[in-house]
């Protein structure tokens, strides 16, 4: 009886659906190509996953509060350009350039937040405009030229952010540990703190939240800043790893990140969010992209399969979701 209720409690969790999806993916891809679980492939899969994942974690909090940020991809490209420009031109040492880029990104989030909370413009429109402003600024500042990052290897900051280490047959990057750390902190904030309650209340019923003394505007403002800062951190990590700070980096990431969050079980319209679900969502999408290549889908048919699988996964996800809601 107790076992039954434990199983029921597990199934009732919003993360159950994404967990099943991830499991299905792993089983299917491994059965078609056993190399899917090879240390080399797992190491490669983890690298890019966590860079997008950092943004997805912050986006989870923002979406739980009922808002979007479509400018994260542009900030992802812009921030490394700022950091490397300041460093390459000898204006600031790398550490200060890093801090300056993060602060600038937080300021971008602050401006977006002000437009949304003070002028009451939907975040979809505000951040779409901000996307163009930030992307355009990156292009204008650089004349379209990527910033060189080759001398990053000698910097301790680069080692701290993306240094790699071998754990048995696995090659792991430091960014994975940052991702885990941020996921734990955000999980704690969202589920164990008063601020987490404010986030959920702001997205669920902002009117009622305000009436109960929650400063909805300030909560959202902080989350916009956090989201931008995390996009900047992810962009900087990516720029060091790929040895390239292109002003057009991150194009289209905003949609992929939102897909990760939604697949993970966070409500698209706000009010309910799950960090564990987002972690699963991040892996679901990344594993899918990796697995499609590994099972030998023809190169030019790649997008057909990705699109079809996303549709299938969403159908399965919402099916499980409805079932779980009916059972609770």
């Amino acid at each position: 009886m107790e076992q039954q209720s434990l199983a029921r409690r597990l199934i009732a969790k919003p993360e159950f659906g994404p967990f099943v999806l991830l499991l299905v993916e792993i089983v299917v891809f491994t059965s078609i190509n056993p190399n899917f679980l090879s240390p080399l492939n797992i190491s490669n899969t983890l690298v890019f996953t966590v860079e997008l994942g950092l943004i997805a974690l912050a986006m989870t909090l923002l979406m739980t509060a009922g808002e979007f940020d479509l400018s994260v991809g542009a900030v992802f490209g812009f921030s490394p350009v700022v950091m490397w420009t300041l460093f390459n031109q000898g204006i600031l040492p790398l550490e200060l350039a890093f801090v300056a880029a993060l602060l600038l990104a937080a300021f971008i989030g602050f401006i977006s937040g002000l437009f949304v909370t003070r002028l009451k413009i939907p975040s979809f429109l505000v951040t779409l405009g901000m996307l163009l402003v930030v992307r355009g600024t990156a292009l204008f500042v650089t004349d379209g030229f990527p910033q060189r990052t080759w001398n990053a290897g000698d910097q301790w900051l680069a080692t701290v952010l993306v240094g790699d280490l071998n754990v048995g047959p696995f090659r792991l990057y430091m960014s994975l540990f940052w991702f885990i750390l941020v996921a734990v902190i955000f999980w704690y904030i969202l589920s164990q703190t008063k601020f987490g309650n404010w986030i959920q209340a702001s997205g669920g019923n902002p009117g009622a939240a305000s009436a109960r003394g929650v400063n909805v505007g300030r909560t959202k403002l902080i989350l916009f800043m956090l989201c931008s800062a995390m996009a900047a951190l992810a962009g900087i990590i990516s720029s060091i790893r790929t040895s390239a700070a292109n002003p057009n980096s991150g194009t289209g990431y905003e949609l992929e990140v939102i897909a990760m969050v939604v697949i993970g079980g966070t409500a698209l319209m706000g009010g309910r969010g799950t960090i564990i679900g987002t972690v699963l969502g991040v892996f679901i999408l990344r594993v899918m992209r990796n697995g499609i290549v590994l099972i030998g889908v023809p190169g030019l048919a790649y997008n057909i399969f990705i699109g079809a699988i996303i549709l299938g996964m969403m159908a399965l996800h919402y099916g499980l979701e409805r079932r779980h809601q009916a059972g609770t």
Partner: protein
Amino acid sequence: MLKRVTGLLVGAAIALAVPLSSQAAAKTFYWISHGGPADPVWTYFLQGANQWAEDTGNTVNTSFHSGDVPSQQEAVRSAIATGADAIVTTSPDPGSMNDVVNEAKAAGIPVININTPDPSVDFDAYVGMDLVQTGKQWAQYLVDNGHVKEGDFVWMPVEIPGATYGVQEEEGIKTVFEPLGITWEVTEATLDQAEVITRMSDYVTANRDKISAIIGLGDLVTGSIKRVFDQTGVKPGEIPVVGWGNSLDTTQEVLTGYVNAAMWQDPHATSYIGLSLANMASSGIPAGFDVLVGNLYEKDGAQGVDDILSGN
């Protein structure tokens, strides 16, 4: 005293008249590209156009359209409407510039095609590479140097599948590989650097034993080879690679042995010569010939290209 003042005034008038007359002679050209403003290669093309404007004192209005055909057509029509002296433009897709080029010619404005040839459109002249020939050269290089043989498989990543450059290059490659029974696959890598590396790494991980050689159909993919090989544990030279070589990433890859040979299209010169032909045509001297560029360099020639790209 009066003579001195008169002399001074005459001198001043002459001094002013010289720039005024040269200003009056200055022409306005439009340089319209299907490339992306953040594409490293296109920034070199742009530099060539800006250098030409600086050297000649003419005005060159430049714009990028990132593969957006209607936007590029609109830009050409704007140039026609403003009475441009000549237009230098690219071909985003075969035949896509046909109507606007005809409209420009009807308005008496010469149009020079750069970067990607399009014989289906009535351009005044073409400056750039013969991409079919380029593909053929890459394939022939791999065959002649014993890197691939009958029954082998060659992987060909490209940023945007279906774009003119990749299609024409594949056409040339096919003429060499098909009779030899060599098979190949084109895969999409996108224009995003991190995504390029990720997708290429996934492919190498999945197909490492199968790949006999790689042909990078674009600059971004060829310039990512080192990072992909490093990530997937492939040693330089283990898988032979040829492709584009218009970026510092690739010159370094050739110098360090990751890429065997790379094609240099001299983007600065392509823009510069394209605008020179446009200027000539606008002065009534028809540009009834094409100018072909391109040079496949190996390790011994890589430093020269690297110096040009570094501005040394």
